[in-house]
């Protein structure tokens, strides 16, 4: 159990490519932090620098107040779970989990206790004498986690641990990681490219792109207040709808006019814009699919559009609609309140009206793509 | 079209965009790609030259940087560091790193000891390669003139080179020693502790483990490959041969570029080395080409036959072929060579059958530049080479994704189209580097030629320049013949060896730079 502090950490490869720029982050004891971003954003590199598998080009990494830059991985008291499990093929499950303890010369009966205990938690007791190749993907991942568990290490590192699993298993393992975390009660650093994993697992999320941190915050913070357009689009599925429009101000009230329909930025968003003295003019407007509502013709702020594709997801519909000026929007609407006739009215090619409220709008500077409310 | 216009078009080759290229006819496409390939060669060579230039520039800059760092370290360093410029390892010892310091000091002591008692002598003799040769001297005890041996050119050259190696090693170690001081000062200044001798030893099995692993293999390569190669390159600039063996009969000495001039000038007085060299080089290239590609395609063919669905006893067929790999070549090749001898089994059987009246002289016929022998070595080489290729091709063929074949069958491809559009490109792509090494390996394929023919039949026109030369002689067997010939013209053998290196290097570089399929090694990881 320990805090991890990264100060101006930088990674430059031999070919002068900079993978991570001045990475600053304070991870508190027992915190679960998720690094998330598209591939090549430097998230794994950062994790591997914390683990000691990658040399730190500049800056310092501290674990529990001690600078570990020059320590070998084995001396950092960390545990790590790898994307492809990295189980030792010639060892049984038991030996895999016991490997680190044996290197520490822990007595065999203690090893037995620890390994069987971990196996029980993970539900792999029946497989202890099998070789990794005789296990399914999910079971292998459990062994990998078990191997990390028995070490009682200060920090638990996970590098895309679920990305080799199929969707169903991934959901299940995700839940198990949450349980595991409650049991272990230690510091977790978790790397993923999947925003759902990030949102569901992390106390805090670090969103990265091209080696730079884009935003650090709780899941709610990054969802409600994306610092820039990239974060706004990256977090949430389906992706946030983005449109270029004009922000205008009349009588102290802010208005936007997407697709020729004038909408008032009402509620707290409007007040916040006013408080920030937001400049009027061109703006990038972002609205999440789940925040667009269906409405009727003639209702205030009704935007006419045509359904292009209707995706029935079961609990909800994803409507890909085209507005009159040709912009494509995605609308997410729950199916629970729709009867059969209403659903038919949303079939491909039919016309409908949508609208959204001011409080769900996100405004980004068209030049810097930063959130206007930063 | 006027020829000049054509030439201009040739030199400023039009670069087509992707869409333009697609509109070209089949022939145009081929011509375009051919032109791009050959157009790429000058660029590749230019790139190589620039690369060499960059390399030297980098070295120059590196040395400049090192010198500047040395001066700075001295200026900014404390007295422990400064003394280390003279007494290696002093700084380390003074700062408590006894083990490191002692090793540095030991190395310096050994070096000084060596230089005083041996190295200095060898080094001073190196420019002359010895002053006093063997000579007759009056021996008062025997009351007769006896031969007294003087300097030994061979040893002077060998140990001179070794001494230079040693000096380079010392400079390097000295530099490391000073760098160590600088780093230690920095560490101490930042308030941290230095590594102890125990830490140093521990790191040799951990973060410095590669040094431990490489120590022995690299020492071996340095002494048993690098040193001999440097020595033999230097021999090319001397007159070392059987009559100047450096000790017993006469010293040898530096002759500058004379040997290269002899070998490469077309108007040699008396014997014409360059013609002989050219002739052997041509045959070497022809041989390497046929030896490589006959094996490649026939081996692939055999592998495809064995691997075809529905063919049984796959393992048995393979095992029969692989026998030729298991049995040492000197047995199989020598035996086959004798089978085809004038009084050998093949002739015996053919005559018994009545197919021929007189024995065929497979290895002796000089008709058409020894064509018969040349064809025979290529054919017998197929016998030796197919099994390897069969194994390699089998491995690769099994890796070709089956769905490629399935989808091509649905698209209506026949067996030949499947081979030419799927199998062959895949094989060529994967085995590109192998083909190159196999080509250069065949250029130096001593065993097959030496064991089968020993170079025969004799090429009377080319012989005489440096012993007898045969029509099937490769450069490498010629080189061997020169060294074992009556005069043991080692200097000439060295020149040939260097030229072989140049030919191999140029071919390799061109292929590496022009072929797109040769991939970066990291791509495989």
């Amino acid at each position, binding site marked *: 159990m320990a805090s991890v502090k990264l100060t101006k950490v930088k990674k430059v490869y031999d070919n002068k490519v900079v993978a991570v720029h001045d990475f600053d982050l304070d991870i508190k004891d027992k915190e679960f932090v998720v690094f998330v971003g598209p591939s090549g954003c430097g998230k794994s590199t950062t994790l591997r620098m914390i683990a000691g598998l990658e040399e730190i080009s500049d800056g310092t990494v501290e674990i529990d107040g001690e600078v570990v830059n020059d320590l070998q991985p084995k001396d950092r008291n960390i545990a790590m779970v790898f994307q492809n499990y990295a189980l030792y093929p*010639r060892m049984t499950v038991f030996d895999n989990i016991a490997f680190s303890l044996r290197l520490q010369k822990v007595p065999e009966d203690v090893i037995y206790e620890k390994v069987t205990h971990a196996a029980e938690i993970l539900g792999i007791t029946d497989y202890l004498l099998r070789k990794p190749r005789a296990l399914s993907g999910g079971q292998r991942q459990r062994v990998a986690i078990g191997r990390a568990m028995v070490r009682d290490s200060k920090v638990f590192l996970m590098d895309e641990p679920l990305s080799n699993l199929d969707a169903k298993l991934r959901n299940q393992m995700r839940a198990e990681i949450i349980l595991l975390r409650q049991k272990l009660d230690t510091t977790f650093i978790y790397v993923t490219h999947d925003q759902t994993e990030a949102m569901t697992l992390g106390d805090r999320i670090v969103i990265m792109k091209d080696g730079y941190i884009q935003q650090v915050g709780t899941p709610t913070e990054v969802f409600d207040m994306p610092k820039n357009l990239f974060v706004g689009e990256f977090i949430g599925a389906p992706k946030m709808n983005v449109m270029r429009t004009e922000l205008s101000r009349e009588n102290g009230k802010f208005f936007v006019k997407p697709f020729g329909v004038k909408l008032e930025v009402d509620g707290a968003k409007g007040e916040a814009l006013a408080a920030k003295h937001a400049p009027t003019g061109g703006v990038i407007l972002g609205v999440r699919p789940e925040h667009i509502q269906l409405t009727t013709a003639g209702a205030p702020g009704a935007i006419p559009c045509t359904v292009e594709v209707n995706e029935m997801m079961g609990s909800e519909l994803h409507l890909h609609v085209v507005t009159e000026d040709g912009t494509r929007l995605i609308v997410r609407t729950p199916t629970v309140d729709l009867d059969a006739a209403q659903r038919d009215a949303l079939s491909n090619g039919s016309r409908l009206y949508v609208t959204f409220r001011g409080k769900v709008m996100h405004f980004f500077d068209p030049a810097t793509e930063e959130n206007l409310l930063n | 079209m006027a020829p000049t216009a054509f030439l201009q078009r040739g030199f400023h080759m039009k670069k087509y965009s992707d869409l333009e290229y697609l509109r070209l006819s089949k022939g145009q496409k081929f011509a375009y790609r051919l032109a791009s390939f050959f157009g790429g060669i000058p660029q590749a060579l230019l790139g190589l030259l620039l690369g060499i230039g960059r390399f030297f520039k980098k070295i120059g800059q590196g040395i400049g940087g090192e010198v500047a760092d040395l001066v700075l370290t001295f200026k900014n360093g404390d007295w422990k560091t400064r003394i280390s410029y003279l007494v290696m390892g002093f700084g380390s010892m003074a700062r408590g790193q006894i083990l490191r310091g002692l090793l540095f000091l030991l190395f310096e002591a050994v070096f000084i000891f060596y230089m005083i008692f041996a190295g200095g002598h060898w080094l001073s003799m190196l420019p002359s390669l010895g002053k006093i040769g063997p000579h007759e001297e009056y021996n008062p005890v025997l009351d007769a003139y006896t031969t007294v041996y003087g300097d030994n050119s061979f040893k002077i050259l060998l140990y001179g080179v070794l001494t230079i190696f040693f000096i380079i090693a010392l400079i390097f170690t000295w530099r490391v020693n000073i760098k160590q001081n600088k780093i230690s000062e920095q560490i101490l200044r930042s308030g941290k502790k230095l590594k102890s001798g125990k830490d140093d030893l521990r790191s040799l099995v951990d973060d410095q483990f590669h040094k431990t692993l490489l120590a022995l293999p690299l020492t071996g*390569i340095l002494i048993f490959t690098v040193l001999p190669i440097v020595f033999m390159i230097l021999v090319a600039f001397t007159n070392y041969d059987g009559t100047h063996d450096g000790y017993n009969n006469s010293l040898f000495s530096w002759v500058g570029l004379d040997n290269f001039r002899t070998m490469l000038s077309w108007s040699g007085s008396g014997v014409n080395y360059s013609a002989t060299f050219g002739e052997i080089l041509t045959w070497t290239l022809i041989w390497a080409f046929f030896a490589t590609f006959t094996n490649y395609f026939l081996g692939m063919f055999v592998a495809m036959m064995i691997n075809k669905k529905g063919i049984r006893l796959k393992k048995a067929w393979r095992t*029969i072929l692989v*026998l030729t790999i298991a049995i040492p070549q000197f047995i199989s090749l020598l035996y086959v060579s004798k089978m085809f001898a004038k009084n050998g089994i093949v002739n015996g059987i053919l005559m018994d059958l009545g197919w021929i009246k007189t024995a065929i002289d497979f290895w002796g016929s000089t008709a058409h530049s020894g064509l018969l022998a040349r064809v025979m070595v290529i054919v017998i080489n197929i016998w030796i080479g197919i099994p390897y290729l069969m194994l390699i091709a089998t491995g690769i063929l099994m890796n070709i994704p089956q769905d490629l074949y399935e989808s091509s069958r649905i698209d209506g491809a026949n067996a030949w189209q499947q081979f030419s559009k799927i199998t062959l490109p895949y094989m060529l792509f994967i085995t590109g580097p192998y083909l190159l090494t196999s080509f250069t390996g065949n250029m130096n394929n001593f065993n097959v030629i030496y064991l089968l023919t020993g170079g025969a039949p004799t090429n009377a026109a080319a012989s005489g320049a440096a012993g007898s030369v045969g029509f099937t002689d490769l450069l490498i067997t010629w080189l061997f013949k020169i060294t074992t010939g009556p005069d043991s013209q080692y200097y000439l053998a060295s020149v040939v060896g260097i030229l072989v290196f140049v030919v191999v290097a140029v071919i390799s570089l061109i292929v590496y730079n022009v072929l797109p399929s040769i991939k970066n090694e990291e791509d495989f990881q």
Partner: protein
Amino acid sequence: MNNQKRHMGLKASARISNTIIYVLLVVISVVWLIPFICIVLQSFRVENTWQVGYVIPQKWGWDNYIALWNSDFKRRYLNTFIIALVTAALQTVFVLCMSYTLSRFRFKLRAGLMRFMLILGMFPGMLTMIILYRVLKDLGLTQANAVPGLILVYVASSAMGYYVSKGFFDTIPKSLDEAARVDGATRAQVLWKIILPLAKPIVIYTILTAFMGPWGDFVFARYVSFGTSSGMNVAVGMYNWLNLDQIGQRYTMFCAGGVVVAIPVTILFMCLQRYYVEGVTGGAVKG
């Protein structure tokens, strides 16, 4: 007609092509085996020690093998066996050290080292024989002491042949090393406990090729033994038997010797063929 052809069963056309292939394979097998059959048959020929124009001996017997037993062949065979054994052991260590290092460590001079070895490999090795011979002579490792001398030369530079082995190590996921290092293993422990148990195929391949090499070397071995019978290996001795002045008496003995040399190597090879195939294939693919 056309339609008929279209409907000619897949089976029928496969049967025709398979028959052709079987015929070809039988022909190839015969061609490949003939020299070996001949050598075995001639090793049992008693009536004449010369080479003759027929295959089947007129009189059979063990004479050639007995002559072999009574000659220096025994000693040479033992020499070669010792050389092969020791070389196989040491060369494997050298090659594995080099290839594992180049596969797993990223140190400053790595790329330069690999390029340097590539360039060194372009020099014809034949060239260095003279000097290596002289060095061995200075060390007193020639003629009667040729066995340790030959071992030294075979082993010393063997790490240059690291390519196949490195290609194999490259296929073992690096995350295994990393996991073990995080688990608390030193680099040496990673190699010993994790990688080596996985490297069995390449270890066997390296041992096998290293063991087979010395049986066939006669050029350098001839230099080093330099006419001293007790320092020769089988290849040198047998090569001499086919010289013009000896071939009359020794030809069938050569055949018998060939059989005796080939049998153990072939048996070993056949037993370990699987690993050899893996190595050769992997090596070519990795380049």
